[in-house]
């Protein structure tokens, strides 16, 4: 899967699962500051990623994920 395809899927999850406005979801957007996702929201996103992409994400892998782009790159590297 190409990076832009992963981004599209990620964007859909943010919009559908968390009700975030689509135009706010950019590669540069910061999860907590720009998208206003709290710590439980991050968990919801991760669980949605795991279901959508049929992968498992360790908590350690998330420590460096602060933006949508970083999440997309992590997912892309695991597919």
């Amino acid at each position: 899967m190409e990076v832009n395809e992963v981004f599209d899927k990620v964007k859909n999850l943010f919009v559908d699962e968390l009700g975030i406005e689509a135009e706010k979801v950019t590669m540069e957007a910061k999860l907590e500051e720009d998208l206003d996702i709290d710590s439980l929201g991050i968990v919801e996103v991760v669980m949605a990623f795991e279901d959508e992409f049929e992968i498992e994400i360790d908590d350690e892998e998330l420590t460096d994920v602060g933006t949508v782009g970083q999440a997309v790159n992590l997912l892309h590297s695991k597919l």
Partner: protein
Amino acid sequence: MKTVLVTGGSRGIGKAIAKNLGLTCNVAVGYSHSKEQADEVVDEIKTAGGNAIAVSIDVTDQNSVDECFETVEDVYSSVDILINNAGITKDNIFPRLKQEDWDSVIDTNLTGSFRASQRAIKGMMKNKWGRIIFISSVAGISGNTGQSNYAASKAGLIGLAKTISKELGSRNITSNVIAPGYIETDMTSFLNDEQKEDIIEQLSIKRVGKPEDIANMVSFLCSDESEYITGQVFPVDGGLTT
């Protein structure tokens, strides 16, 4: 219509809970060994006009827990309410308590509730609605001679329930504990008449509890009327812990 899974739903308090909730919810009657008794509970709920299925669940086995939830989700689409009721006792005075009896009671009563609750919360977070009820015991609040393992497991449920309530309240998921006192079930059937009299003497309401006394409280805590109540422990014990 909401769907409830009652672990240990084929007997005792769990059976009364399942039957009572059958008036308002789809019910999955969870059983570990007593399939025939679970089927009877299902029949009784259906006879009263409700919807129910019997489903196998061994709370000491994560695969069994996952399979149980998948079965219920296939039939009713979601598990909206979880009643963590499955529990065992392996009593012995503390100096003589074997570690294997400690381990098995903790694994079933406490870790079993962890397994089922964590699985249930996946769907509840998606639906942004959920109710989790833990059936603890007054032994978890006051301790009880010969039941250090059981009391510890039941006290552990209180910390678990309170933490879940704090983490997930923002998603309309409530988590509460009911602490039954002496309730007439198989688990207390070993008491002789004299012991029962001694117990009743300690109570404000002069009778041993019935499973229905617990079921009524469960039904309230599962209802929309209780949406502002979370992280709490409710003794239903005839005044034993007053």
